[in-house]
């Protein structure tokens, strides 16, 4: 008894100390007011499972930010090293497969949940009156999510990433008038290069997150200002519950289900990574599933009609979505009493899903495509199953690695050339490296031999001598033959 009494007393004292600390903190931060603002928001009609989508999206955005930040700890946004660094994250870093899997499936989940959130808001007529800007901000956020998908898709620099983005860039180039300029700006030149990768990276990790974060803030502010719309039937309008605890609980459970699903997906179906991009291969590009409906429509639009599904349709769809609350000004919110709107939603969502399945079906039944796609998938799995192999980096050594075994330079090279061009042709502060020189213009075997006889017509700068009269022709031959073996990795 006495013992229990002491525990009881201690508990009360501990609580009063905690309360004091809370008061102290509140005086300086206003935390009580903030908590009230955050948790005591009244919800017309009470807490509902239908309202969890927005909270899940906010959670997913947080997951993408956190996993994304840490992925950049090893990721290198350069065409030469991006694939090796992603492979390292996926295959070698502890927790890497899970972190990358969360980011990969989190991106997919964001597309699904954003569409679900939009569909729910549309169906409940919650975009009407007072909530026009709230809705418009949401539509822009959906666009940003698609931009995230497009820019993030290229970053691993594997076959699917390279060829998928190539198609995307070509589509951007088809837009009348501004297309070609826009494509050049997007790629940072006229082809998909390491510069493209850099700007996709910057857009993906700096610009888009800043934009989305700002819009999340605006969206939440406008939402709190407008207050939740409540159910469309108005039956429960008298019933009002606070955000905490019931809606908080429903949101938390939904978030937990989503998180468990992401972890399970990352574990049992690891995020894919195929062989490194090879621009010379005849890879059959297929977009990620959420761009499939447009891809399928593209098949029905020959020649100049191609811009209908790629540009016109998305522009009209998003334009209409954006403007929806401004021309749909009826107060009616019940979906069954808005047959046109409801039918349109079902048509667009159902049509999109139908097109995805149709595209899959055609790929499976076309013998030529089916075989090629199967082969690509097998290549991908074969690459994926191989243990991580570090990329070999570094001037002279790369040449040695490429030729398999160290190929010794001829003595004439070591005597006459190595002082400036390096012992193995790696170059030095006073002279260029010779690795990969044979693939440069005007540096064929014949050119190189001529340079050793008379460098003047080639415009080489000092201290490169104009000629080497002391080296016998057969030694010059040996030097050039050896130079031809110096291949960059």
């Amino acid at each position, binding site marked *: 008894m006495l013992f229990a009494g002491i525990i009881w007393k201690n508990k009360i004292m501990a609580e009063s100390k905690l309360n004091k600390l809370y008061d102290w903190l509140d005086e300086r931060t206003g935390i009580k007011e903030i908590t009230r603002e955050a948790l005591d928001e009244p919800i017309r009609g009470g807490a509902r499972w239908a309202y969890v989508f927005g909270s899940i999206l906010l959670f997913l955005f947080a997951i993408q930010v956190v996993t994304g930040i840490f992925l950049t700890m090893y990721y290198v946004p350069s065409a030469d090293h991006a694939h090796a660094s992603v492979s390292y994250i996926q295959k070698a870093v*502890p927790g890497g497969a899970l972190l990358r899997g969360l980011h990969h499936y989190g991106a997919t989940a964001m597309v699904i949940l954003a569409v679900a959130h939009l569909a729910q808001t549309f169906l409940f007529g919650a975009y009407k009156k007072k909530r026009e800007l709230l809705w418009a901000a949401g539509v822009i956020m959906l666009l940003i999510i698609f931009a995230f998908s497009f820019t993030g898709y290229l970053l691993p620099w594997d076959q699917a990433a390279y060829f998928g983005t190539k198609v995307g860039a070509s589509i951007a180039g088809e837009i009348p008038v501004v297309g070609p300029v826009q494509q050049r700006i997007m790629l940072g030149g006229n082809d998909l290069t390491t510069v493209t990768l850099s700007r996709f990276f910057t857009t993906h990790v700096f610009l888009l997150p800043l934009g989305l974060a700002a819009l999340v803030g605006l969206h939440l502010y406008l939402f709190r200002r407008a207050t939740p719309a409540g159910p469309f039937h108005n039956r429960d309008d008298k019933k009002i519950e606070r955000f905490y605890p019931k809606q*908080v*609980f429903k949101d938390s459970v939904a978030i*937990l289900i989503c998180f468990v699903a992401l972890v399970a997906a990352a574990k049992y179906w690891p995020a894919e990574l195929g062989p490194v991009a090879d621009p010379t291969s005849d890879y059959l590009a297929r977009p990620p599933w959420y761009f499939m409906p447009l891809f399928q429509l593209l098949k029905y639009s020959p020649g100049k009609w191609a811009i209908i599904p790629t540009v016109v349709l998305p522009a009209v769809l998003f334009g209409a979505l954006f403007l929806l609350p401004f021309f749909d000004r009826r*107060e009616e919110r019940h979906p069954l009493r808005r047959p046109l709107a409801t039918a349109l939603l079902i048509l667009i969502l159902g049509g999109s899903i139908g097109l995805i399945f149709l595209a899959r079906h055609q790929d499976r039944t076309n013998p030529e495509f089916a075989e090629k796609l199967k082969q690509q998938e097998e290549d991908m799995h074969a690459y994926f199953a191989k243990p991580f192999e570090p990329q070999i*980096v570094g001037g002279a050594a790369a040449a040695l690695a490429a030729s398999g075994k*160290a190929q010794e330079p001829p003595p004439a090279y070591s005597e006459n050339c190595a002082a400036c061009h390096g012992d193995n042709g790696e170059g030095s502060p006073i002279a260029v490296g010779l690795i990969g020189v044979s693939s440069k213009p005007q540096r064929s075997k014949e050119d190189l031999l001529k340079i050793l006889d008379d460098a003047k017509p080639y415009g080489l700068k000092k201290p490169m001598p104009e000629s080497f009269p002391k080296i016998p022709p057969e030694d010059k031959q040996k030097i050039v033959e050896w130079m031809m073996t110096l291949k960059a990795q």
Partner: protein
Amino acid sequence: MSVEFDEGVAPVPERRSFLGLISGLIVAGISAVLGVTIGRFSIGPAFTASSGQDWTELGPLDEFAEGKLVKKNVIVSQDAGWGKFQSQRSVWVVRKGDDVKVFSGVCPHLGCSVNTRADKFICACHGSEWNDNGDTLAGPTPRGLDTLEFRVEDNKLKVKYQDFKQAITEKQVLS
């Protein structure tokens, strides 16, 4: 359309609630899983052992002139995350008859490059000096020049390059 409602009519529930506790546990659980994963991800690779260096060939043994201090470059490979980064390091070879010594070109004091003056090794940074046997003659160096493991195969001299911890009296391999 719906009636306007007065925010005041809904009672503010007690902060302590079972649903609130469950919600808190969910948040804590997810944070823990993420935290542990991120911790392993960030810290793990810092503790992976790097693979040792291969043997690098320095050339035919008899090409090293008797008693001369000869500088040779070797290619070393450094494991770092997604890459094997290959770069060059210098070593010094001294052959006196059958007695061969290969020294690291890194000063054991603070890591500057070792050079030669006449028949001595010197480090220009802080004035350390060693004889051709690697024994300290002068300067702040805590120990003699670091010798490298070598072997002779088919009359070819091969060395195993290593880095050593600086500024301590005993020679300690960095790995």
